[in-house]
């Protein structure tokens, strides 16, 4: 256990986030005007992140999970239209000017990208990239920042940091590069780390290691982690709460165990059933949700999932379902929760 340095680069008051959540997203909608029409990437999304927790955000491509992340970081393209509020420790990030937002990025909220080989600058040594992040937000000289960088590299489990620090990204393996990316993300002890598919580009054998590094470092630094992925299995082991997104909306949100034990949304059940299972013979075809995710321009009326849903009725075609409380801290967006819950018992027999 390498000790977290007690002195923080900013006043301790910053950590008094009160009792409330550090991040509160309220009715966030993001639209992109395109030649083909208006793309509704995110529609009326509300959620919160508690201090230090791991929130898993799960969904297929185009479900709006990455756009939500970029909206929080303030990195959406200029042409996008954003409505709603993103309150980070009470301040609405959408209302911040560019300079103030730049100070938030990397210091209070940082991001881990999907592909470490492209997220690191190929012509700068990893040490320089770490030092740059440190010195951007902390008042340290070159020497101190370098020492800090070495400690961070040690923290994320890079052997022989002294030798690695002056190497270029192409001289490190993918897993090592992702560790560097993680080190950069936590360099300033941010309150929130957003990881967008952090293991998708990695070899399966390394995924577990990187996840372990990420969650243990996150716990040690005390950051909250917003883990964006399409892999429910990844979320199962790490997340405290899970939020399932589809077609730009949140379909279900619940503590991680509830989602796997009593998923209350047909889409969640579909995702759960799609996980390959070791206890099934190779003869059984893999389950997949029929149909394809909807286009973000022509969303189905009513419930966005109804064309692919086994539970769909006429009501689903015309009327968008509301968020309904299912249990403690468990919400689902469906007209037929009762029928779904009955069905989910079957899936829950053997959680992944």
């Amino acid at each position: 256990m390498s000790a977290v340095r007690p002195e923080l680069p900013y006043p301790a008051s910053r950590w008094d986030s009160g009792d409330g959540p550090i991040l509160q997203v309220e009715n966030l909608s993001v639209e992109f005007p395109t030649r083909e029409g208006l793309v509704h990437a995110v529609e009326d999304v509300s959620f919160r992140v508690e201090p230090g927790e791991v929130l898993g955000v799960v969904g297929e491509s185009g479900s709006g999970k990455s756009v939500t992340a970029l909206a929080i970081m303030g990195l959406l393209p200029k042409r996008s239209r954003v409505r709603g509020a993103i309150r980070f420790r009470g301040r609405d990030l959408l209302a911040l000017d560019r300079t103030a937002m730049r100070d938030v990025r990397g210091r209070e909220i940082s991001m881990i990208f999907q592909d470490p080989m492209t997220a690191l600058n190929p012509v700068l040594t990893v040490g320089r990239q770490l030092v740059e992040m440190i010195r951007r937000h902390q008042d340290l000289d070159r020497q101190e920042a370098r020492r800090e960088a070495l400690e961070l590299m040690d923290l994320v489990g890079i052997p022989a940091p002294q030798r690695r620090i002056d190497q270029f990204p192409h001289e490190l393996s993918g897993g090592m590069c992702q560790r560097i990316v993680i080190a950069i993300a936590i360099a300033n002890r941010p309150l929130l780390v957003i990881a967008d598919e952090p293991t998708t580009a990695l070899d399966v054998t390394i995924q577990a290691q990187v996840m372990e590094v990420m969650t243990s470092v996150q716990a040690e630094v005390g950051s909250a982690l917003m883990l964006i992925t399409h892999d429910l299995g990844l979320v199962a082991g790490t997340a405290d709460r899970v939020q399932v997104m589809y077609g730009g909306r949140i379909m279900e949100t619940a503590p991680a165990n509830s989602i796997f034990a009593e998923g209350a949304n047909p889409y969640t059940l579909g995702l759960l059933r799609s996980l390959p299972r070791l206890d099934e013979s190779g003869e059984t075809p893999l389950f997949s949700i029929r149909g394809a995710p909807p286009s973000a321009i022509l969303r189905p009326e009513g419930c966005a999932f109804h064309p692919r849903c086994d539970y769909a009725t006429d009501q689903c075609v015309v009327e968008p379902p509301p968020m309904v409380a299912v249990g403690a801290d468990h919400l689902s967006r469906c007209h037929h929760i009762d029928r779904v819950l009955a069905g989910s018992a079957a899936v829950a027999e053997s959680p992944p």
Partner: protein
Amino acid sequence: MTDVRSDSLVGGDGLLQPSAVQEARGFGRQVWDRFVHHRVAMAAVVVLVLLIASFWVAPLLSPFEFDELTPDLRQAPSWAHPFGTDEIGRDLLVRTFIGGGFSIRIAVLVSIVATLIGTLLGALAGYFGGWVDAVISQVVNLVLVIPALAILLVLALRWGSGPWALAMILAALLWVRIGRVVRGLFISHREADFVEAARAAGARSSRIMLRHILPNAVGPIVVEMTLLVGTAIILESTVSFLGLGVQFPIPTLGNLINEAKGAIDTVPSRILFPGGVAVLITLCVNFIGDGLRDALDPAGGHA
């Protein structure tokens, strides 16, 4: 926590890949290695260095000054005057070497100034896009479509009689080549993940352009800059040949050729010396540019 680190030491991370350990050297070093193994480019470097050294040394050894009038008028090459003399008896050997020196200094200055302007404007256009790009690209297109040489001649008439003024005029026309290249490079890099990551780290635009994108664009810029030296030598010669460049008594390769055309019937060899030097410099510079292009290509084969 402890297990994370000990795990990774033995883990299947491929962290002890032999190739990674062996290639623990910088990109710059690899580029250098590839460049010195590029035979044509290295030969060009040697020739160019000798040529430039001779521009400096030959006048010191010569018994004549470049503007000294000797009694030997309009002579063909001889032992006393290996390159011959001109109409008013000036020694052409010392004039050719002094002229070559002026020409190459002008060309290098043109290349540096054009690269600075082109890189700055190209970077702004490529990175910001939108109206910034529209304005800069229109200026670039304007410079490209107008008969640049004609404009150059008019400008040269007014301001272009000194070598440095001529250099500025040439740079004002040639920066568009660099500008277009740099704009393209910045457009292709501005959406790169590492740029997005730098933004997510709170870096400002100027820092992203300077620290993150520019180092990725240095290769093509250096190549283009080298090739510009060749272009500038030719253009300077053209302008001076037409009598509108650097004026009496300063020799450049261009006005030496211009003066030689009067003697084309009597001493045709006279035109070969400054012409040959101009061709030699241009060839060398282009070969070096090719070598750099190959060396800087990350895919890296030897030529």
